[in-house]
């Protein structure tokens, strides 16, 4: 009983310390966790898997360094998946730091031996159009004309000089959209304008915080798949057989969750027991 009473007045710093230990120890002593991809993650993987060689996919990045631990592994997974299937990739972003982080992910992917050997060429196999301010207005404008919306790429090269972009007029020439979003503007605008108005099939990867808000789009088929948070990233890495930080971080994530669940249960038991005692 005294333990339960002490739980009620436990110094929050002890909980912080235990969470820190739960996060750090598995980084040093990693253990294998069997992955069971969710149907939502499987949906995104299957949708990309169905695309044929030579298709053109837009990968849009609406995230920043603060949310990169969750989103960056998804972007890397998507790039690897697309390149393996011979899909052409157009990178862009509606958040200022998104395209820069996508460029970083791209660089890391291209430095891996498997992709180095593919000899992928900028302008031919992939381009980075950079950031454009305006949120939904940008998507709407892309539906009319992508070259008019993005006259140059991220480095300032005129879009007509990039062979990949020569045949791209608007969303009619885009096979699929993968949106990686950490907030607003993000996936809801892509669904509303690119999918519902211009009928481009799409899927999304998002931070765990945004996932519950996006699940209704999955139920209605407006999204072909959804990667929610680090678990979604780990699922995608597992499905594409490209282990990265998503899978690497999962043991820490799982142990930290376990500690939180234990504290929630202990806190509730202590609350009800002490309340009952108080009533007497």
């Amino acid at each position, binding site marked *: 009983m005294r333990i339960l009473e002490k739980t009620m007045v436990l110094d929050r*710093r002890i909980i*912080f310390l235990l*969470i*820190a230990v739960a*996060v*750090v120890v598995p*980084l*040093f002593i990693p253990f294998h966790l069997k992955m069971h991809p969710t149907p939502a993650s499987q949906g995104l993987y299957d949708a990309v898997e169905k695309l044929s060689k030579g298709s053109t996919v837009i990968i849009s990045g609406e995230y920043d360094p*603060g*949310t*990169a*631990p*969750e989103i960056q592994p998804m972007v890397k997974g998507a790039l690897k998946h697309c390149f393996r299937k011979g899909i052409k990739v157009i990178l862009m972003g509606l958040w*200022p730091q998104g395209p820069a982080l996508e460029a970083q992910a791209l660089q890391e992917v291209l430095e891996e031996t498997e992709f180095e050997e593919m000899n992928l060429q900028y302008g031919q196999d992939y381009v980075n159009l950079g*950031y454009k*301010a305006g949120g*939904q*207005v940008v998507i*709407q404008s892309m539906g009319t004309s992508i070259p008019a919306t993005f006259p*140059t790429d991220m480095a300032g090269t005129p879009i007509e000089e990039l062979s990949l972009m020569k045949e791209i007029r608007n969303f009619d020439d885009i096979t699929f959209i993968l949106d990686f979003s950490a907030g607003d503007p993000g996936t*809801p605008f892509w*669904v*509303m*304008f690119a*999918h*519902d*108005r211009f009928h481009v099939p799409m899927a999304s990867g998002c*931070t*765990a*915080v945004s*996932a*519950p808000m996006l699940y*209704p789009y999955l*139920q*209605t*088929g*407006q999204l072909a798949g959804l990667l*929610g*948070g*680090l*678990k979604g990233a780990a699922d995608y890495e597992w499905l594409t057989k490209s282990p990265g*930080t998503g899978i690497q*971080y999962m043991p*820490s*994530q799982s142990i*930290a*969750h376990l500690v*939180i669940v234990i504290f929630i249960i202990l806190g509730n038991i202590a609350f009800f027991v002490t309340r009952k005692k108080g009533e007497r």
Partner: protein
Amino acid sequence: MSTSIEVWIAALLTLGILSFLYKDNPFYKVSESIFIGVSAAYWFVYMIYNVIKPNLIVNLRMGQWWYAFAGILGIMMLLRLVPKIGWLSRWAVAFMIGTGAGLNFIVYLQSNVMKQIKGTLVPLNSIGNIVMIVGVVTGLIYFFFSAEHKGLFGGAAKVGIWFIMVSFGASFGYTVMARISLLIGRMHFLFSDWLRLLH
């Protein structure tokens, strides 16, 4: 241990911010102030070179004079800093609200109301579908305040509250997952990039 000055600065600032978990202290205050100052400067410069220059200056230089209207609206927005003529900023705000509402209204209704209603009209041939329909109907009943929540109607509203509570729980679970992921990312940075204890 890293020899890069950038990594050291990032690591010390990370520790400074995390030190708030123990208690408020000068190390935290300094880190917080640096973050705010650097963010403001970064965004100011970023916006000039990535928003104003490519979207306004470049277009004006190309002779597309009608972009001047957008520039004028932008200046009007800033006029709220001058109390005497601050009212002019309302015109720019009105323009933004008007175009935003016009652009979003139909599409929003179509994507977030009509398609969601259509997605709920499913046959009652599985437990998942039954749970979804009961959740939607009772959730809507809970938010129907024109009738008193008594009797059968009150019971349905109570079921609605339970569904809403479950959805709050799911949201909270996802939020915890997100915050822990960010903590893992920072810890990995400290032990890998800074201290080089992880590979």
